[in-house]
């Protein structure tokens, strides 16, 4: 492992502890930065310590104490430095676990704007640089830097606490944290634009964060469900596009190239999560598991998928869920019933290319190719990225071909 990897791997945990003892994000980042500089001096000479994280934390604390003493003009700063020295002993596993949870829940506090939550999570827990995050979200580095500065300032000035939510707050707060991780994954997975490599990194980072949450809260059903969902989607990542970058539909993907080890892990997690509770992440993961476990596209158990979407629609009345349910019903019972379910969604989804391409597909299956052509034409006009547009244009050409 390179030093850079080591630092990135350890930084979340070290920062989490530093923020608690120093009570300030910026001071913690400065102290960590100083410790990293010290490591770059010492490690090439002394070798990498057995526990690099502990080394960084101890060094960062000493640097912070030095700084407080240097800047001390009042007695209370001396006292604060003294307290930090005492706190040095205090690094048992429970404290470390709790610190990381505190950091997650503070970064994902609902009083921060969602984009600020995402940026702060990637910066502090993920150890990504401001520049990397800016690249991933296609904003100028200065904009991202300002977003981070504002978020940290709000935490400080508005008094957002550095603590684990109480039990009665946990459902709402956990939902926010899981939402951030899911958003990071989707930004990488359902790429609308941008650089491939950066996007893969976002998927990997989201999975790493979900694993961390699952490690910290092993009994939370939704956490296990989210991790399962990400693993199962990600297991198909390499087959989602062909060599030319063109989109490949689930039914046409080369299933031998799916990551079957990761699928096995995902399926096991789905089962564990469903035993503990039923929520949107668990159900979406269960749906992904049915797809992932099916040896061929034709063997897909659409009845079960339609039933799972039915459950999901009861928890989440979004039209996108309803659209997916309609597709599953069409696969299970035939295109006619599916089309009826799709058509009622027109007012909510008419601006979305997926709605029109789904209609086009079902109309084509029903032999109503003139209407199918019309639907695909609308879908092409609404597509948001090149891969999707090219895919839809090919579909359109096929349908036009069959009308003669």
């Amino acid at each position: 492992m390179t030093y850079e990897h080591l630092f990135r791997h350890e930084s979340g945990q070290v920062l989490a502890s530093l923020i608690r003892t120093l009570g300030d994000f910026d001071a913690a980042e400065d102290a960590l930065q100083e410790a990293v500089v010290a490591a770059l001096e010492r490690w090439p000479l002394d070798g990498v310590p057995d526990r690099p994280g502990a080394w960084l934390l101890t060094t960062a604390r000493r640097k912070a104490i030095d700084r407080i003493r240097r800047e001390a003009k009042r007695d209370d700063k001396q006292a604060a430095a003294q307290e930090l020295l005492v706190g040095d002993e205090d690094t048992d596993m429970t404290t470390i676990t709790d610190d990381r949870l505190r950091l997650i829940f503070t970064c994902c506090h609902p009083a921060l704007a969602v984009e600020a939550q995402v940026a702060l999570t990637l910066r502090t827990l993920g150890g990504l640089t401001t520049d990397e995050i800016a690249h991933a979200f296609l904003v100028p580095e200065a904009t991202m830097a300002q977003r981070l500065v504002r978020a940290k300032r709000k935490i400080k000035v508005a008094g957002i606490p550095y603590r684990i939510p109480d039990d009665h707050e946990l459902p709402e707060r956990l939902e926010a944290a899981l939402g951030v991780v899911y958003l990071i994954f989707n930004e990488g997975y359902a790429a609308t634009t941008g650089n491939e490599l950066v996007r893969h990194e976002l998927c990997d980072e989201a999975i790493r964060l979900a694993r961390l949450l699952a490690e910290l809260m092993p009994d939370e059903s939704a956490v296990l469900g989210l991790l399962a969902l990400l693993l199962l989607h990600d297991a198909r990542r390499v087959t989602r596009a062909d060599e030319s970058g063109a989109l490949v539909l689930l039914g046409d993907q080369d299933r031998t190239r799916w990551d079957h080890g990761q699928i096995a892990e995902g399926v096991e997690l789905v089962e564990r999560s469903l035993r503990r509770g039923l929520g949107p992440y668990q159900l979406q993961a269960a749906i992904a598991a049915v797809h992932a476990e099916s040896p061929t596209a034709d063997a897909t158990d659409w009845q079960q998928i339609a039933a799972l979407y039915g459950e999901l629609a009861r928890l989440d009345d979004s039209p996108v869920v309803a659209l997916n349910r309609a597709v599953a019903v069409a696969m299970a019972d035939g295109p006619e019933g599916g089309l009826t379910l799709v058509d009622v969604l027109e007012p909510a989804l008419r601006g979305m290319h997926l709605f029109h391409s789904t209609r086009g597909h079902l109309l084509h299956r029903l032999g109503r190719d003139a209407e199918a052509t019309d639907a695909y034409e609308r879908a092409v006009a609404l597509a948001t990225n090149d891969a999707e547009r090219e895919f839809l244009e090919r579909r359109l050409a096929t349908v036009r071909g069959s009308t003669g």
Partner: protein
Amino acid sequence: MKYMLLIYTDPSAFDPAQGEKIYGEYMAFTQQIVESGELVAGDPLQGIETATSVRVRDGKRTTTDGPFAETKEVLGGYYIVDVKDLDRAVELAAQIPDSRTGSVEVRPVQDMG
């Protein structure tokens, strides 16, 4: 930390039949934060039809009837509370009766000490 809880209401949505019940809820809420020691100050305000806006530009004072901006929701009252952190302030804000129909803005008070 001190926070100001600014209570915004939509006067057109006011239901006179609910008036007494809501008044009672405000009294109970105020009593609760008096007893917990969290209340610093708090008052309801008279309606915006009684408001006067003042601007001084280039040394010249202009006085106009009503608030600065035409909005549906208007500032109807406030509390200042002294609590541990934002989470507690938000918890209190959510207990203010008008948070159910209007909204409550939570703002940290700047420490000028």
